[in-house]
Every structure is written in structure tokens, then in C-alpha cells.
């Protein structure tokens, strides 16, 4: 295999950085606000640097940000399917549906040549996941090289690449609006709190540097399935919590018969799958309503060739 052969990356000329797609995930909100301040300052000082690249900074869901809530009427990050974006808007359309179309106009249209080259969407999770890059693809060189570069420049936080194997036509999140895109998820952080800073600054130099980028491998975690909490058949309320031996053990291999949940009467419920899988999004607050206590992934190694830009 010609791992040493250099293949050229398409040049990135428009990159979008989005924060506050969920209004209470504050790392992205604060980062984008700071970047907007710096951008304003640079404009006022009339810095006339030749910029080969434009960065579009977006606070995706301003109403939810103002209220410090995940969303106002409906989850914005599920509103970017082709059907939602191209469908008609009724008078009573939820706020987020209207906003998704605005964002599609600003950063897309999704699927067209006018769309931005890359959407980087910033999120937080209450799960102990460290820093994760989440993408629909396991072979998009931009996503993979971004990940490798982040890994090389960030030593104080564990990093993983998560792959949601969803076909392009069915993609639903904000990052699917650009020609390329990924979500950056950092945790654990309670919603409504800012603790963790996203190491984004190193990325800009990387994208626009025009240097040769080394190849290598990336361990990709491909999502296989979700597991819901055990629930009361009548009230649908949860009747168990994530087991203490599983809590905070994102990406530690879960074997058949390992503890999964502990009921409120102290009983242990065990993992009944046949295949050992990697759990993640363990006890993510926002997923209680989506019926997800944890997600499970398979891990495999993906080789990527060296890249350079034109």
C-alpha cells in the first residue's frame, strides 16, 4: 500500500464554526463569542492581511442560547434533513425549523456547490467522553486528518473518532450542510456550565497552512446501536440508573454479562448482547427523552495516506 504517496486535499476556502446549536452547551457558545469579538476587533483595526480563507462564525440557536436551553420547540440538530430543509414552512412552524432554513441559506444550500467547504459544529456532553470528532463518514480525508492533527496537538484530553453510518441522503445534523462537516463533542460538562475549552485555534493554521500532512491510522468507533433505560410499562418512567461500574467508563469495552443498570431496589441488570462493544454517550442528559441510556460502537482501524494542499 502506498501509504507514503502524497495525495492532494481540496483547498478549503470557506469554513464555518458553529456554537450553541444546543443553547445550553456552553463551550461552543463562549468560543464563538470570543472569536466574534476578535473578528470585530480585527475589522475595526482594519487589518488588511491577505486571507486565503474565510471563517464564518455562527451562533446557531440564539433563542435557545438566550434561555440556556437545549432547544425552544424542537432539537435544531435534527432539522437538517433534505425533507425538512426543502419542505414548505407553515405559519405555526417551530422556531428551530425556521432557523434551520436560515442556516441552510447562510452555509448551504446543502448538497449544492455554493455550500461552505466545512462545517465544524461544537457541542458538549454530560458523558465522560473527552474530545470526540463525530462524522457521517469514515473515509473523508478532511475529517480524518483533522482528527489526527488534533490528536497530535492536544495531550491533556483523550480523543476519539466516532462514525455514524448514516447515508448522506438521511443526514440530519447541522454539520451535514457543508460539503464536509463534523461535530466536535467535548465532555464531561454539565449543560449550562462552562468548564472545558475546545482546542480549535490550532485547526485554522492546519487547514490553511498548505503543508504536507502525514498519513497514518485512525481508530474509528462506528455506532452500532443504542440501549434505553429500563422503564415502567405504565408510566414510562425510568426504573434504573446506569450501574456505578459503567458510569463514566465511556470507550471501555463492555462485555456480555457486564453490569449495565442498577434498579432503584438495588438489582443489577446486565448487558445481554453477544458481542463486546464500546459504550459512549453514557448517561447523556439530553438523551433521556430520546430513549438512549448509552450508545454502543465497534472499533476498527482506518489507514489514511499523506495529504498536502494545492
Amino acid at each position, binding site marked *: 500500500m502506498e501509504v507514503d504517496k502524497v495525495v492532494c486535499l481540496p483547498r478549503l476556502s470557506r469554513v464555518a464554526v458553529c456554537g450553541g446549536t444546543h443553547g445550553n452547551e456552553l463551550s461552543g457558545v463562549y468560543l464563538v463569542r470570543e472569536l466574534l469579538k476578535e473578528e470585530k476587533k480585527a475589522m475595526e483595526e482594519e487589518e488588511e492581511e491577505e486571507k486565503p480563507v474565510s471563517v464564518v462564525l455562527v451562533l446557531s440557536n440564539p433563542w435557545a442560547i438566550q434561555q440556556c436551553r437545549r432547544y425552544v420547540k424542537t432539537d435544531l440538530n435534527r432539522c437538517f434533513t433534505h425533507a425538512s430543509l426543502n419542505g414548505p414552512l407553515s405559519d405555526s412552524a417551530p422556531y428551530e425549523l425556521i432557523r434551520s432554513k436560515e442556516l441552510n441559506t447562510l452555509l448551504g444550500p446543502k448538497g449544492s456547490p455554493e455550500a461552505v467547504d466545512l462545517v465544524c459544529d461544537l457541542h458538549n456532553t*454530560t458523558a465522560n467522553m473527552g474530545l470526540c470528532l463525530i462524522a457521517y463518514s469514515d473515509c473523508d480525508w478532511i475529517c480524518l486528518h483533522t482528527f489526527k492533527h488534533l490528536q497530535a496537538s492536544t495531550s491533556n484530553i483523550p480523543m476519539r473518532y466516532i462514525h455514524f453510518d448514516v447515508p448522506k441522503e438521511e443526514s440530519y445534523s447541522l454539520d451535514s450542510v457543508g460539503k464536509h462537516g463534523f461535530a466536535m463533542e467535548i465532555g464531561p460538562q454539565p449543560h*449550562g456550565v*462552562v*468548564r472545558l475549552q475546545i482546542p480549535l485555534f490550532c485547526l485554522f493554521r492546519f487547514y490553511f497552512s498548505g503543508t504536507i500532512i502525514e498519513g497514518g491510522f485512525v481508530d474509528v468507533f462506528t455506532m452500532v446501536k443504542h440501549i434505553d433505560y429500563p422503564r415502567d410499562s405504565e408510566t414510562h418512567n425510568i426504573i434504573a440508573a446506569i450501574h456505578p461500574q459503567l458510569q463514566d467508563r465511556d470507550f471501555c469495552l463492555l462485555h456480555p454479562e457486564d453490569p449495565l443498570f442498577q434498579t432503584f431496589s438495588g438489582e443489577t441488570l446486565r448487558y445481554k448482547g453477544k458481542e463486546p462493544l464500546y459504550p459512549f454517550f453514557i*448517561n447523556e442528559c439530553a438523551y433521556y427523552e430520546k430513549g438512549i441510556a448509552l450508545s454502543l460502537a465497534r472499533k476498527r482501524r482506518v489507514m489514511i495516506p499523506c495529504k498536502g494542499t494545492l
Partner: protein
Amino acid sequence: MSAYKNSVCFNEARRVAIFGGTHGNEMSGVTLVNLWVKNSAEIQRKGVETKPFIANPKAVEKCTRYVDTDLNRAFSPENLSAPGGDDLPYEVQRAQEINRIFGPKGSPEAYDVIFDLHNTTSNMGCTLILESSKDHFNLQMMNYIKKAITPASCLVLLNEHPLLKYSTSRSVAKHPVGLEVGPQPQGVLRSNIFEAMRVILKHALDFIELFNEGMEFPPCTVEVFWVSERIDYPRDANGNIIAMVHPNLQDCDWEPLNPGDPMFQTFDGKTIHYQGSGTVYPTFINEAAYYEKQQAFVTTRRETLVASAIRKA
């Protein structure tokens, strides 16, 4: 007859309430109370009527801290006597209803004890919250609980500050006891936090049973962290936060903060240092719900209170 001089007598504590969901997204209390509403065997004690109660059902249903206004700040005399019925904010109406059921606040008919269950995103561990330094019944209860859970720890936070004290839902009772366990994100249920809260309540109810049976509790000392000052985040002219709690301070609830120690870190990496005149003990560090209340953390000072011997009247 008492074995101790200056022993204080209290009536038997016959009516006790356990409030969950005063804040609708603090899940340990919500889950425990729902459990006990279904099956109260675990909280029954001889001679005591123990009522589990969801304080803010609308907020619980939406898994949000509150709907119109913070219920745990709503029990002021003005609110409790405000006319207006349905036009009042939901939580003010609810406060009046709670005052009718468990109060009236300040009257002989009020419930003897209310335990109010809370979670915090701060790394506070198990914390008991006291509203009066002169409540010897509560001081003795807290001493009992601390001894019962040793070597695990449970600290006592005393909020008697004239300006920072607020009108809590539990303040309707003669002996209000706040129970704050963290760290836990809002809307999340963590097994270890849930169990810790459950154990503390068990010991609290045991204490009440023993007291009602006639046990006399000898004088004791209780170390408390006395609320001193509220410190806000540094903000810009528009009121936006411009710095985070410094990594050296994050999660260091109850540890000494000395003048000159790092306190905040701006988003471009500069450190802001604590400028107080002496060592303080910060807590409620980076509590999510307090961003809107202009509070990054509170400072406390360590004091030792002396509790008189107590027995039932």
C-alpha cells in the same frame, strides 16, 4: 429529667416531609420521592408521619429548574400573602399552596421537619444546609448524620447571611433541612449520588425516631461552613461572562482559597487571582443554575458551633 444542664426541649417531631423536585431538573430527589410515593416502607418510622412530596410538578414534568420563577426563592412573606390567584407566577401560587399544606410558616401548625432534596453541578459531595445557627435540634441531627456515615463525609453549610439568605421551600417548617448532593449534571441521574442521598435520609429519619422515643442527645460541637460572600464571574460591559472558573479552583469545593490563589481564567488564558484579605473556603463552585444569579461561587468561613443537649418535651 435531663442529665445535662441547659438541655433544650423540643416537641416530638411527628410530622415530617421530604421534598423532591423543588428544582425540576435535580433528579436524585425527584426519583427518590417518586419511589416513596409509590412505596413508602423505607421512610416509615414509628410515631412519625413522613410525607414524600414533589414540590414543583410542572418543572419536574419539563425537566427544568423552574417554569416562571425559582420556587426555592419564592417563600418570602410578600409572596406568601400576595393576592392575585391565577395571575401570579406559577411558583408563587405553588409556594402559597405549599404553605397551606405544610405551614403556615412561623405558626405552631407548621410541619416539624422538611427535608429538601437538591443536586448541584458543583463538586460539593454530600452537604447539609442549615438556616439558623441556633437550631439545636437541627444541629444535633446533623451531628448524628455525620457520625453515622463516617468514614464517608457530609459537611454542613450555614446560610444565615442577612443579604444572601433566601426564602426556601423548606423554610415553611419549624426545622428546615437542605440536602445538596453533587456533582451531578442537571437532568441526569447518577447511581452513586442517588444512593448517597438515600443513605443520609435514612440516618436523618433514624435520628427523629430515636428523639421521639425519648433519647437525650448530649451537647456536641458541629463544624459548619458559614456563608460569607458571593463572587460573580468577571463580565464585559454587556454582562457576558469573560472568564471561567480557573482549573486550579474548579472542583475544589471546601478547600482553602488563599489571597493570591488563581480564581478565574479568561478565555484568552490570563489568570485572575483571589484578592480577599484572608483564607476562605469556597463552595457552589461553578453551579450551572447560578450563572443567572451572578454567582461563580460563595466563600465561607469555618466555624465550630456548640449544640446544647436536646430531648423531647
